[in-house]
């Protein structure tokens, strides 16, 4: 069964008004269960909007989004997905453990069960000794790991991530990519991942969805075709570079088209 099914999706903001924005047009996409799919494209291509439509934080203008065979609205009510943003978004008045417990609190879990699960999640992200710390005592990378732990606390099958490593330095970023893949493999989580880093998209994903702006459309889907688990060697593998080139061509083709139309907005 596919984890996410998107059919003929359109999204227009401020429809009929002077500031109307046609954010997405005719999006069709299937994400298989257990798959890691990245959305990449220049800013304004609607990749974050697409993610929010899957999360049902926005309503589509036209078309359907199905998550785990349910409507996006129902999936949100059932907390079928976890979400992580560029900002870790930890609550500074809560300890790290209490932050991880938050989605479980809202699900009405009792205290002992919550605590048990939070400790389990702290182990998963390898920060077991930081449960009683406050978020501001942690580095950016550690905060983001806690945000991932929180997103996965209720064991959702789907993880939606909006440039979660965008604010981290390159070294931390590569470490976090490895950690994310390990965590997703351990928990068998499906991931829909928004980024604007080509190497990041290729390293993490089975498929990379290339999008173009005004209105946001899918221009190309690149099958990364890296086999087996990723390692540091992956970043030097020929197939890695091949996939990077394929994604870059997808993005560049779009740029060339824009230049031809006199719309160079680089």
């Amino acid at each position: 069964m596919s984890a996410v099914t998107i059919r003929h999706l359109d999204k227009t903001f401020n429809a009929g008004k002077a500031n109307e924005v046609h954010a997405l047009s005719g999006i069709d996409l299937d994400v298989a269960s257990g798959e890691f799919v990245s959305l990449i494209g220049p800013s304004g291509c609607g990749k974050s909007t697409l993610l929010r439509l899957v999360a049902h934080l926005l309503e589509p203008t036209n078309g359907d989004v199905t998550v785990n065979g349910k409507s996006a609205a129902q999936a949100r009510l059932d907390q079928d997905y976890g979400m992580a943003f560029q900002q870790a978004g930890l609550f500074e008045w809560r300890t790290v453990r209490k932050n991880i417990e938050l989605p479980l609190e809202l699900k009405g879990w009792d205290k002992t069960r919550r605590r048990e699960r939070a400790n389990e999640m702290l182990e998963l992200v390898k920060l077991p000794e930081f449960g009683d710390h406050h978020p501001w005592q942690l580095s950016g990378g550690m905060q983001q790991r806690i945000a991932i732990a929180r997103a996965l606390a209720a064991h959702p099958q789907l993880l939606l991530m909006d440039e979660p490593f965008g604010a981290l330095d390159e070294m931390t970023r590569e470490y976090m990519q490895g950690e994310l893949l390990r965590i997703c493999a351990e928990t068998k989580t499906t991931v829909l991942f928004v980024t604007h880093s080509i190497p990041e998209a290729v390293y993490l994903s089975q498929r990379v969805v290339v999008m173009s702006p005004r209105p946001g459309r899918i221009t190309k889907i690149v099958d990364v075709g890296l086999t087996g688990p990723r390692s540091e060697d992956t970043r030097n593998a020929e197939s890695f570079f091949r996939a990077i080139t394929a994604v870059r061509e997808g993005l560049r083709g779009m740029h060339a088209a824009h230049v031809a139309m006199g719309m160079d907005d680089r």
Partner: protein
Amino acid sequence: MMIARLARRTGPPVAFGVGFLAFWEWAVRFFELKPYFLTAPSVIWSQFTDAFGLVRGAATVSGGNAFVGLVAGTILGIVMSFALSRWRLLNQIVTPLAVALNAIPIFVLVAVLNNMYSITSEIPRRIMVALVVYFIVLVNVARGLTQVSATHVELMRSYAASDVSILLKVRVPNAVPFLFTALKVAAPAAVITAFVSEYFGGSQNGLGSRIASNIANSKNAAAWSYVLGACLLGLLFYSVSVLLENVVRRGGGRQ
């Protein structure tokens, strides 16, 4: 270790304060300043200790007014800020008004309030304090309830959290530091308003009226001793608000 660190932190301001008082005392003696022009600290102090009972009595009256007004204004401000954050239209009407009123010395209204109650009543003064505190608390807490991180709200919506859950788990904790910021401003303002309110008639029993009447009678040392009492009362209110913040937010947030 801890004593040494405390001494390093408090040493300079204490030394400055002592030096200032010493200079004041010296200047009064050296230039032979008349007591009605400037009273020496030593004279003020002896007056303060001699008439401590009177100063304390007056401070109890003014402090009581300030305290009752502070509590009432804070409660009213918190309740209203919840209403404002809930109903946007109300917010649009009340907030600009509150900000504008915050900028003008509305404590002169006490003259009007005095006409509404009997001449010996403390109620007009307490209402005045409550009003001043109310606007300070209202503006700050309403800001704390509404200016929440967009990520936090999206996160809560992704958990399908109800508006009540978002209020209790995001908006209220977010507003707590704003409340204490408001209290640190409102506590001294409450004391000042209580003093000034006494200038507009009513019983001559508080620190403000005692300062005014002693100056009118050229009893400058006595006036200064009440000023000292007023300073200590203001300091007490501020310290308690800081202490309260430390107790409530103990480790709860970035200090």
